[in-house]
């Protein structure tokens, strides 16, 4: 049998690299940590009607929270919390942070409803407001440690939390202090995670 030529190996390696880097679910080549939330495949449809897996956000620290658009009381506070985090950062730091609000009400939170909130609250385009598939809501809530129950009238009872993910999707901080007054310890963790490695 003829030994494989170096040229062939090089071509094969290049192809492999191309496949790995172009797979949307795994933009980074290093294996995912076993405690990363991105171990959960999670297709999301955002306010622009685009569908992507949350693992495509790997590589950038993220602040993630769950909400739903028709919520009157707590969810506006969750948006306030996200804005408060942004206000605690410099322009340069802000540019390195993603913010994901994930709906627990995918039946009603179609792209138009999500865009309605983004417009009304004048959210920076770096914010993703997105709905998972109905069958995935319980799992993503489980991963983020959010408890919820849908009421007969369609509203939800739920716990509220902001969760900070590092570049690889590991949960590095979490706060249940929501509203326009930020949690200083949480902000400090956000600043640390967007600082250059």
């Amino acid at each position: 049998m003829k030994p494989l030529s170096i040229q062939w190996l090089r071509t094969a390696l290049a192809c492999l690299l191309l496949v790995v880097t172009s797979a949307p679910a795994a933009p980074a080549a290093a294996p995912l940590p076993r405690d990363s939330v991105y171990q959960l495949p999670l297709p999301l449809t955002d306010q622009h009607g685009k569908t992507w897996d949350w693992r495509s956000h790997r590589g950038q620290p993220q602040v993630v929270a769950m909400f739903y658009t028709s919520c009157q009381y707590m969810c506006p506070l969750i948006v306030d919390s996200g804005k408060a985090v942004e206000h605690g950062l410099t322009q340069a730091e802000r540019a390195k942070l993603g913010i994901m609000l994930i709906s627990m009400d995918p039946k009603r939170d179609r792209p138009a409803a999500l865009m309605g909130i983004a417009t009304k609250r004048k959210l920076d385009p770096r914010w993703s407001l997105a709905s998972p598939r109905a069958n995935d809501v319980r799992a993503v809530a489980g991963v983020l440690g959010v408890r919820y129950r849908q009421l007969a009238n369609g509203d939800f009872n739920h716990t509220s939390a902001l969760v900070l993910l590092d570049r690889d999707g590991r949960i590095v901080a979490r706060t249940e202090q929501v509203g326009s007054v930020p949690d200083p310890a949480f902000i400090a963790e956000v600043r640390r995670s967007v600082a250059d490695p």
Partner: protein
Amino acid sequence: MRVLAAALLFVLPAAVVAGGAAWVKVPGGSFRSALKYEDGRAARIAPFDLQKRPVTNAEFLAFVQSHPQWRRDRVPTLFADARYLAHWPTSTRLADSAQAAQPVVNVSWFAANAFCEAQGARLPTWREWEYVAAADETRRDARNDPAWRERILGWYSRPASGPLPRAGLQTPDAFGVQDMHGLVWEWTDDFSSLLVSGDNRVQGDAEKTKFCGAGALSMSDRDNYAVLMRVAMLSSLQARDTTTSLGFRCAKNLP
């Protein structure tokens, strides 16, 4: 090797491959929960299929072998804590035939959910579980009988030492379902909807800062300790937690 595995798959009884326990058709009905839901206690339970007994170690091992990402040495720590399947001698072997017939425990919600999904099923909801768990051997709702309550309480007060009995030994209840009490605790699909305050002294007082909307559930039937303890336990768990007395069974919507 692969041929051997394929051959073995054919040799295994069909029931094991399909998830083991027989399915019981649970008729629908109206049901008053022992929980005081803010949107009303009475609910219409739609008919559904429920596994007759909890999932066993042997059945869960078959699942782990066909879905190796759920082996304890491979599972993402996101989905299961360090005690996941810790009672098995290795990640792919059971201690003996006695263990094979025992209900599987040390499983997280994610693992239980994945098992049921692999059977084309799901975990039962809390309401479905409570509905079936209200029965004794002759009545679909025995909850007002003090003797029934005493019997269940007797199990909870026994220390959980010694090996677990086999699954499916107890007399079926009025629905034809076994082991709803007296064997293991069980995951429900919506365990994390049980927003019960950890502190019984504030029952009924909504922790408004923690729970959006009307607040935590409270118990409207404080004598129903069996339900109270189940709810308190489930509401204290995270989806990746496992315990030595917590297993599950699957449910299915009727076609």
